[in-house]
């Protein structure tokens, strides 16, 4: 069982790579080096800030876009193209298929992020000419970004299991935007009353809470991140992804394939 998931995951990774996904790293590298060089020449006392902010934001945004664009097709494309027929006629459970796809996509993003991290540290070294202890915080930010990716992947997969790629993209992207303002949504909900308040609170808790994962601004100012937050964010990402994947499994399990 576990090996089948592994095989599906590595095949998903292979598909992404052959889909030339990793070429995005070129765009990323260009962006970051351009910024680093530009900022290094102007020398405006905040080079480090710019590199960290820009670099990490780019890692986050590039990754979210990749996660959504690959994720939304993971299931729907296979149903559309009927490549699933010969896969499911083998001893592969439907839920293994979903989980395998998830790990494949997540793995792709982790590898992508790894290369981007090298780029960020490279650019950082270029502008600061040395590393300080506080730079280790960048790893925390990257870890949180990866947790974000896990959530987005699971959501994209959830939508892919029942919706067309276009709709899935719209849903996933909307949830990403709303999720970035989840704390504000909860504040709104607190101020509302009655039924609409309840609904708003429900929605506010259902929506993925990305704002807690965004520590880019604070670590750029070398503010430490609480260990508690790291732990709780990790658990939150784990449970949220499980929730979305369970939903995907439930939906996919009952689907008649066309």
């Amino acid at each position, binding site marked *: 069982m576990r090996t089948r998931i592994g095989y599906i995951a590595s095949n998903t990774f292979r598909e992404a790579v052959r889909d030339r996904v990793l070429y995005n790293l070129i765009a990323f590298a260009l962006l970051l080096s351009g910024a680093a060089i530009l900022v290094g020449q102007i020398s405006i006392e905040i080079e480090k800030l710019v590199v960290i902010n820009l670099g990490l934001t780019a890692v986050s945004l590039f990754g979210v876009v990749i996660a959504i664009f690959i994720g939304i097709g993971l299931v729907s494309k296979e149903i559309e193209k009927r490549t699933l027929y010969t896969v499911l006629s083998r001893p592969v459970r439907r839920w293994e298929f979903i989980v395998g796809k998830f790990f494949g996509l997540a793995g792709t993003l982790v590898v992508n992020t790894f290369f981007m991290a090298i780029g960020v540290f490279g650019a950082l070294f270029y502008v600061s000419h040395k590393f300080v202890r506080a730079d280790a915080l960048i790893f925390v930010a990257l870890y949180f970004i990866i947790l974000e990716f896990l959530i987005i992947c699971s959501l994209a997969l959830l939508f892919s299991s029942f919706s067309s790629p276009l709709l899935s993209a719209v849903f996933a992207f909307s949830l990403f935007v709303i999720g970035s303002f989840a704390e504000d949504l909860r504040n709104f909900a607190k101020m509302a009353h009655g039924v609409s308040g309840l609904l708003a609170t429900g929605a506010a808790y259902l929506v993925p809470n990305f704002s807690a994962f965004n520590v880019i*601004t604070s670590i750029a100012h070398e503010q430490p991140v609480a260990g508690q937050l790291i732990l709780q964010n990790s658990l*939150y990402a784990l*449970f949220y992804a499980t929730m979305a994947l369970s939903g995907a499994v439930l939906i996919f399990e009952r689907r008649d394939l066309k």
Partner: protein
Amino acid sequence: MKVRQKTTMIASICLVVSLAASSFLLHRIDRLRPQATLDEVLYLSSPKVIKRASLGYDGLMACIYWTRAVQYFGYRHYYSATSYNLLAPLLEITTHLDPHLVVAYEFGSSFLAPAPPHGAGQPQAAIHLMEYGIQNNADNWHLYYDLGFVYYMELKDYKKAADTFERGSHVPNAHPFLKILAAQMAQHAGEYQTARMLWSATYQTTQDEQIKQNAVEHLRALRVDEDVQHLQEAVTRFGERTGRLPASMAELVDAEGLAGTPADPDGQPYKLTPEGRVEVRVPDDFPFATKGLPPGYKPAPKFHAMP
């Protein structure tokens, strides 16, 4: 079907459990970072940067920052905080994103100027905000009112207050009372009547609950101040006539021909101390009262500290 049912059951359980767990964790995370949404305000010094980062969705961002400002203030106010450093930047950002969000200016005028714990204690910031608001909403007479209010209430600059009310009265469709207020400033600035007029006007013309509540508290305090002043004068007159202090409130009421038992807006009768001071029974109920407070009175601390 058995395998499928088993999978369905396990997946459903996973779904429900993870939903509960993630909601619980979210709750905990929120407590870790109560003012998390304000990170940017701390680190981004200029509203212009935020405006650019909004990618044109200024109106929406203004609403979001407005909510944050209200939450920020409400949260800290509940715990009688002694500082509200982020209120001015938050309101500045909000109004830069949407210069026509009038309620933000009103909020600023009510809560930026007064001293903590009732406000941020930054009257200059309030004036700056109001001038910006007037600049961008020249046809809104209420903003002139709010600005004049700040001059009157916090800075006690009656001349400026009068000028502002006067300016405002020239706005088309301005409420007639602006002209009246301008005149009042000139002659009767320091009187209770004037203050009462202003707070009543604020109460009636605002939609915001917090501002309304604030106005009510001020009106109650004014009542107390006025009552205590009159009663204290009565005590003085009594003293001049009889050469001693009244033994009780009842005696004072009889001797000076006062109507009924004097009571505060909550219905609690005023106290007369042996030293001849008129005091209100429960000072904590009147946070803005300046008279009728026992000597050495300090507002009671909240029993839960701000997390």
